[in-house]
Protein backbone atom coordinates (compact mmCIF):
# COMPACT_ATOMS: atom_id res chain seq x y z
CA UNK A 1 0.00 0.00 0.00
CA UNK A 2 2.84 2.33 0.95
CA UNK A 3 4.63 1.51 -2.33
CA UNK A 4 1.45 2.31 -4.26
CA UNK A 5 1.50 5.84 -2.86
CA UNK A 6 5.25 6.37 -3.31
CA UNK A 7 5.39 5.15 -6.93
CA UNK A 8 3.39 7.99 -8.57
CA UNK A 9 5.44 10.60 -6.66
CA UNK A 10 8.71 9.02 -7.80
CA UNK A 11 7.29 8.73 -11.33
CA UNK A 12 6.45 12.43 -11.35
CA UNK A 13 9.89 13.39 -10.00
CA UNK A 14 11.57 11.24 -12.65
CA UNK A 15 9.45 12.82 -15.40
CA UNK A 16 10.51 16.29 -14.17
CA UNK A 17 14.16 15.20 -14.05
CA UNK A 18 13.97 13.69 -17.56
CA UNK A 19 12.40 16.90 -18.91
CA UNK A 20 15.11 18.99 -17.26
CA UNK A 21 17.79 16.66 -18.64
CA UNK A 22 16.27 16.96 -22.12
CA UNK A 23 16.31 20.77 -21.86
CA UNK A 24 19.93 20.69 -20.70
CA UNK A 25 20.93 18.37 -23.58
CA UNK A 26 19.12 20.26 -26.34
CA UNK A 27 19.42 23.87 -25.19
CA UNK A 28 21.81 24.49 -22.29
CA UNK A 29 24.76 22.30 -23.35
CA UNK A 30 27.36 24.10 -25.48
CA UNK A 31 27.53 23.17 -29.16
CA UNK A 32 30.53 21.05 -30.09
CA UNK A 33 32.81 22.88 -32.55
CA UNK A 34 33.52 20.17 -35.15
CA UNK A 35 30.38 18.02 -35.08
CA UNK A 36 27.82 20.69 -34.30
CA UNK A 37 24.39 19.84 -32.88
CA UNK A 38 24.54 16.17 -33.83
CA UNK A 39 27.04 15.68 -30.97
CA UNK A 40 24.08 16.15 -28.58
CA UNK A 41 23.07 12.54 -29.37
CA UNK A 42 25.94 11.73 -26.98
CA UNK A 43 23.75 12.85 -24.02
CA UNK A 44 21.31 10.01 -24.71
CA UNK A 45 23.71 7.46 -26.20
CA UNK A 46 26.30 7.36 -23.40
CA UNK A 47 23.93 7.37 -20.37
CA UNK A 48 21.88 4.60 -22.04
CA UNK A 49 25.06 2.53 -22.48
CA UNK A 50 26.13 3.07 -18.86
CA UNK A 51 22.64 2.16 -17.61
CA UNK A 52 22.61 -1.00 -19.76
CA UNK A 53 26.03 -2.01 -18.41
CA UNK A 54 24.87 -1.47 -14.82
CA UNK A 55 21.73 -3.54 -15.39
CA UNK A 56 23.74 -6.35 -17.00
CA UNK A 57 26.11 -6.23 -14.03
CA UNK A 58 23.17 -6.64 -11.61
CA UNK A 59 21.94 -9.51 -13.79
CA UNK A 60 25.41 -11.08 -13.48
CA UNK A 61 25.43 -10.73 -9.66
CA UNK A 62 21.90 -12.18 -9.39
CA UNK A 63 22.81 -15.09 -11.67
CA UNK A 64 25.91 -15.90 -9.61
CA UNK A 65 23.86 -15.79 -6.41
CA UNK A 66 21.11 -17.95 -7.91
CA UNK A 67 23.73 -20.58 -8.80
CA UNK A 68 25.81 -20.54 -5.58
CA UNK A 69 23.32 -19.93 -2.78
CA UNK A 70 21.81 -23.44 -2.64
CA UNK A 71 25.32 -24.81 -2.02
CA UNK A 72 26.79 -23.50 1.30
CA UNK A 73 30.40 -24.18 0.27
CA UNK A 74 30.02 -22.41 -3.09
CA UNK A 75 28.20 -19.57 -1.32
CA UNK A 76 31.08 -19.14 1.13
CA UNK A 77 33.66 -19.23 -1.69
CA UNK A 78 31.67 -16.57 -3.60
CA UNK A 79 31.41 -14.37 -0.48
CA UNK A 80 35.15 -14.51 0.17
CA UNK A 81 35.93 -13.95 -3.51
CA UNK A 82 33.82 -10.79 -3.50
CA UNK A 83 35.46 -9.58 -0.26
CA UNK A 84 38.87 -10.29 -1.84
CA UNK A 85 37.87 -8.26 -4.93
CA UNK A 86 36.91 -5.30 -2.71
CA UNK A 87 40.09 -5.43 -0.60
CA UNK A 88 42.27 -6.29 -3.62
CA UNK A 89 41.01 -3.29 -5.57
CA UNK A 90 41.77 -0.95 -2.64
CA UNK A 91 45.30 -2.36 -2.27
CA UNK A 92 45.91 -2.38 -6.05
CA UNK A 93 44.83 1.26 -6.29
CA UNK A 94 47.70 2.35 -4.07
CA UNK A 95 50.33 -0.31 -4.84
CA UNK A 96 50.31 -0.71 -8.63
CA UNK A 97 52.37 2.04 -10.24
CA UNK A 98 51.94 3.36 -12.83
CA UNK A 99 48.26 2.72 -13.48
CA UNK A 100 47.14 2.76 -17.14
CA UNK A 101 46.70 6.26 -18.54
CA UNK A 102 43.53 7.98 -17.36
CA UNK A 103 42.75 5.50 -14.55
CA UNK A 104 42.67 7.14 -11.14
CA UNK A 105 43.53 5.10 -7.99
CA UNK A 106 40.28 6.27 -6.40
CA UNK A 107 38.22 4.89 -9.32
CA UNK A 108 39.88 1.46 -9.00
CA UNK A 109 39.17 1.34 -5.25
CA UNK A 110 35.60 2.63 -5.68
CA UNK A 111 34.84 0.06 -8.41
CA UNK A 112 36.09 -2.81 -6.21
CA UNK A 113 34.11 -1.62 -3.21
CA UNK A 114 31.00 -1.01 -5.36
CA UNK A 115 31.15 -4.60 -6.70
CA UNK A 116 31.36 -5.97 -3.14
CA UNK A 117 28.67 -3.57 -1.92
CA UNK A 118 26.25 -4.51 -4.71
CA UNK A 119 26.83 -8.21 -4.14
CA UNK A 120 26.03 -8.11 -0.42
CA UNK A 121 23.18 -5.62 -0.83
CA UNK A 122 21.42 -7.92 -3.32
CA UNK A 123 22.11 -10.89 -1.07
CA UNK A 124 20.58 -9.12 1.92
CA UNK A 125 17.52 -7.77 0.10
CA UNK A 126 16.57 -10.71 -2.15
CA UNK A 127 15.97 -14.39 -1.39
CA UNK A 128 17.45 -16.96 -3.81
CA UNK A 129 14.27 -17.38 -5.95
CA UNK A 130 13.85 -13.60 -6.00
CA UNK A 131 17.39 -13.12 -7.34
CA UNK A 132 16.21 -15.14 -10.36
CA UNK A 133 13.27 -12.76 -10.80
CA UNK A 134 15.57 -9.73 -10.51
CA UNK A 135 17.93 -11.30 -13.08
CA UNK A 136 15.11 -11.58 -15.64
CA UNK A 137 14.01 -8.00 -14.97
CA UNK A 138 17.47 -6.45 -15.29
CA UNK A 139 18.22 -8.43 -18.46
CA UNK A 140 15.00 -7.28 -20.08
CA UNK A 141 15.36 -3.60 -19.16
CA UNK A 142 19.09 -3.78 -20.00
CA UNK A 143 18.23 -5.02 -23.50
CA UNK A 144 15.89 -2.03 -23.95
CA UNK A 145 18.68 0.40 -23.03
CA UNK A 146 21.19 -1.52 -25.19
CA UNK A 147 18.73 -1.23 -28.10
CA UNK A 148 18.72 2.55 -27.60
CA UNK A 149 22.54 2.49 -27.77
CA UNK A 150 22.52 0.46 -30.99
CA UNK A 151 19.95 2.77 -32.61
CA UNK A 152 21.35 6.15 -31.53
CA UNK A 153 24.95 5.14 -32.37
CA UNK A 154 24.37 4.75 -36.13
CA UNK A 155 22.23 7.93 -36.13
CA UNK A 156 25.29 9.77 -34.82
CA UNK A 157 27.75 7.88 -37.08
CA UNK A 158 25.96 8.64 -40.38
CA UNK A 159 26.53 12.42 -40.36
CA UNK A 160 29.91 12.26 -38.56
CA UNK A 161 31.63 9.23 -40.16
CA UNK A 162 29.55 9.14 -43.35
CA UNK A 163 28.53 5.52 -42.67
CA UNK A 164 25.82 3.93 -40.53
CA UNK A 165 27.88 1.02 -39.22
CA UNK A 166 31.38 -0.40 -39.24
CA UNK A 167 32.56 -3.78 -37.90
CA UNK A 168 34.88 -2.20 -35.37
CA UNK A 169 35.56 -3.91 -31.99
CA UNK A 170 33.39 -1.59 -29.88
CA UNK A 171 30.39 -1.72 -32.19
CA UNK A 172 30.64 -5.45 -32.86
CA UNK A 173 31.09 -6.39 -29.20
CA UNK A 174 28.06 -4.23 -28.29
CA UNK A 175 25.98 -6.01 -30.92
CA UNK A 176 27.21 -9.39 -29.59
CA UNK A 177 26.28 -8.29 -26.05
CA UNK A 178 22.77 -7.39 -27.23
CA UNK A 179 22.44 -10.74 -29.04
CA UNK A 180 23.59 -12.67 -25.93
CA UNK A 181 20.93 -11.05 -23.77
CA UNK A 182 18.28 -11.49 -26.48
CA UNK A 183 19.13 -15.21 -26.48
CA UNK A 184 18.92 -15.15 -22.66
CA UNK A 185 15.40 -13.70 -22.84
CA UNK A 186 14.38 -16.16 -25.58
CA UNK A 187 15.63 -19.03 -23.41
CA UNK A 188 13.56 -17.78 -20.49
CA UNK A 189 10.52 -17.24 -22.66
CA UNK A 190 10.41 -20.47 -24.67
CA UNK A 191 12.15 -23.14 -22.59
CA UNK A 192 9.72 -25.27 -20.57
CA UNK A 193 12.39 -27.24 -18.72
CA UNK A 194 12.53 -26.99 -14.92
CA UNK A 195 16.24 -26.29 -15.31
CA UNK A 196 15.63 -23.06 -17.30
CA UNK A 197 16.61 -20.64 -14.48
CA UNK A 198 19.89 -22.53 -13.92
CA UNK A 199 20.70 -22.63 -17.67
CA UNK A 200 19.78 -18.96 -18.03
CA UNK A 201 21.94 -18.01 -15.02
CA UNK A 202 24.91 -19.88 -16.52
CA UNK A 203 24.36 -18.12 -19.86
CA UNK A 204 24.15 -14.75 -18.08
CA UNK A 205 27.46 -15.37 -16.27
CA UNK A 206 29.21 -15.98 -19.61
CA UNK A 207 27.29 -13.16 -21.29
CA UNK A 208 28.44 -10.68 -18.66
CA UNK A 209 32.04 -11.37 -19.63
CA UNK A 210 31.34 -9.37 -22.79
CA UNK A 211 30.53 -6.21 -20.78
CA UNK A 212 34.19 -5.42 -19.79
CA UNK A 213 35.23 -6.23 -23.38
CA UNK A 214 32.74 -3.67 -24.70
CA UNK A 215 33.74 -1.08 -22.11
CA UNK A 216 37.52 -1.44 -22.41
CA UNK A 217 37.65 -2.18 -26.17
CA UNK A 218 38.30 1.48 -26.97
CA UNK A 219 41.16 1.55 -24.44
CA UNK A 220 42.77 -1.69 -25.63
CA UNK A 221 42.19 -1.70 -29.41
CA UNK A 222 42.53 0.95 -32.08
CA UNK A 223 38.91 1.55 -32.98
CA UNK A 224 36.94 4.01 -35.06
CA UNK A 225 34.69 4.67 -32.06
CA UNK A 226 35.59 7.90 -30.21
CA UNK A 227 38.00 7.48 -27.30
CA UNK A 228 36.66 7.67 -23.72
CA UNK A 229 35.81 11.18 -22.63
CA UNK A 230 36.00 10.34 -18.93
CA UNK A 231 39.24 8.57 -17.94
CA UNK A 232 41.45 6.94 -20.56
CA UNK A 233 43.24 10.21 -21.23
CA UNK A 234 40.15 11.88 -22.73
CA UNK A 235 38.76 15.25 -21.77
CA UNK A 236 35.38 16.95 -21.85
CA UNK A 237 34.12 20.48 -21.31
CA UNK A 238 32.88 20.72 -17.67
CA UNK A 239 29.48 22.04 -18.87
CA UNK A 240 29.12 19.03 -21.18
CA UNK A 241 30.11 16.69 -18.34
CA UNK A 242 27.47 18.29 -16.13
CA UNK A 243 24.76 17.71 -18.77
CA UNK A 244 25.98 14.16 -19.35
CA UNK A 245 25.77 13.32 -15.63
CA UNK A 246 22.31 14.88 -15.28
CA UNK A 247 21.07 12.78 -18.19
CA UNK A 248 22.62 9.67 -16.66
CA UNK A 249 20.95 10.39 -13.32
CA UNK A 250 17.60 10.88 -15.08
CA UNK A 251 17.95 7.63 -17.04
CA UNK A 252 19.03 5.78 -13.89
CA UNK A 253 15.90 6.97 -12.03
CA UNK A 254 13.79 5.97 -15.03
CA UNK A 255 15.46 2.54 -15.18
CA UNK A 256 14.89 1.98 -11.44
CA UNK A 257 11.16 2.75 -11.81
CA UNK A 258 10.79 0.53 -14.88
CA UNK A 259 12.66 -2.30 -13.11
CA UNK A 260 10.48 -1.85 -10.05
CA UNK A 261 7.26 -2.18 -12.12
CA UNK A 262 8.65 -5.11 -14.09
CA UNK A 263 9.79 -6.83 -10.88
CA UNK A 264 6.31 -6.54 -9.34
CA UNK A 265 4.86 -7.96 -12.55
CA UNK A 266 7.33 -10.87 -12.50
CA UNK A 267 6.56 -11.76 -8.87
CA UNK A 268 2.80 -11.54 -9.50
CA UNK A 269 3.18 -13.66 -12.63
CA UNK A 270 5.04 -16.35 -10.70
CA UNK A 271 2.41 -16.37 -7.94
CA UNK A 272 -0.37 -16.76 -10.52
CA UNK A 273 1.50 -19.59 -12.25
CA UNK A 274 1.99 -21.36 -8.91
CA UNK A 275 -1.72 -21.00 -8.08
CA UNK A 276 -2.71 -22.26 -11.53
CA UNK A 277 -0.39 -25.26 -11.16
CA UNK A 278 -1.87 -26.00 -7.74
CA UNK A 279 -5.41 -25.71 -9.14
CA UNK A 280 -4.51 -28.08 -11.96
CA UNK A 281 -3.23 -30.59 -9.41
CA UNK A 282 -6.30 -30.35 -7.19
CA UNK A 283 -8.95 -30.30 -9.92
CA UNK A 284 -9.02 -34.02 -10.83
CA UNK A 285 -9.46 -34.99 -7.16
CA UNK A 286 -12.31 -32.57 -6.53
CA UNK A 287 -14.10 -33.58 -9.72
CA UNK A 288 -14.06 -37.28 -8.69
Amino acid at each position, binding site marked *: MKMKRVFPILGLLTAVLLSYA*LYEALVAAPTEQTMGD*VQRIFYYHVPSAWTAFLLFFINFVCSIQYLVRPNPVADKVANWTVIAIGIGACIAAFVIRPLPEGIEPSSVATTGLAIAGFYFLIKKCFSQPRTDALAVVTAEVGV*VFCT*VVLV*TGPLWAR*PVWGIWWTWDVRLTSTLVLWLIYISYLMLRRFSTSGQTPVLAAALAVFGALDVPLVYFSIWIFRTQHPQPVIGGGGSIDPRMLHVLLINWLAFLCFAVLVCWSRYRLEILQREVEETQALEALLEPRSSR
Partner: protein
Amino acid sequence: MNFLYAAYAATWIIHITYLGTLVRRYQRLSHEIEELKKK
Protein backbone atom coordinates in the same frame (compact mmCIF):
# COMPACT_ATOMS: atom_id res chain seq x y z
CA MET B 1 19.76 18.45 -36.87
CA ASN B 2 17.42 15.82 -38.36
CA PHE B 3 19.67 13.05 -37.07
CA LEU B 4 19.61 14.57 -33.59
CA TYR B 5 15.82 14.66 -33.47
CA ALA B 6 15.62 11.18 -35.00
CA ALA B 7 17.91 9.82 -32.25
CA TYR B 8 15.93 11.46 -29.43
CA ALA B 9 12.61 10.38 -30.95
CA ALA B 10 13.87 6.82 -31.47
CA THR B 11 14.98 6.64 -27.81
CA TRP B 12 11.54 7.57 -26.54
CA ILE B 13 9.72 5.39 -29.07
CA ILE B 14 11.74 2.39 -27.82
CA HIS B 15 11.04 3.19 -24.14
CA ILE B 16 7.35 3.93 -24.69
CA THR B 17 6.90 0.74 -26.74
CA TYR B 18 8.46 -1.26 -23.91
CA LEU B 19 6.26 0.46 -21.32
CA GLY B 20 3.27 -0.38 -23.56
CA THR B 21 4.18 -4.08 -23.47
CA LEU B 22 4.42 -3.88 -19.66
CA VAL B 23 0.94 -2.34 -19.43
CA ARG B 24 -0.46 -5.05 -21.73
CA ARG B 25 1.15 -7.79 -19.62
CA TYR B 26 -0.29 -6.23 -16.43
CA GLN B 27 -3.75 -6.20 -17.99
CA ARG B 28 -3.48 -9.85 -19.06
CA LEU B 29 -2.32 -10.83 -15.59
CA SER B 30 -5.15 -8.90 -13.89
CA HIS B 31 -7.58 -10.78 -16.12
CA GLU B 32 -6.01 -14.11 -15.08
CA ILE B 33 -6.21 -13.14 -11.39
CA GLU B 34 -9.90 -12.25 -11.81
CA GLU B 35 -10.55 -15.64 -13.37
CA LEU B 36 -8.73 -17.40 -10.53
CA LYS B 37 -10.79 -15.47 -7.97
CA LYS B 38 -14.01 -16.56 -9.68
CA LYS B 39 -13.12 -20.27 -9.29
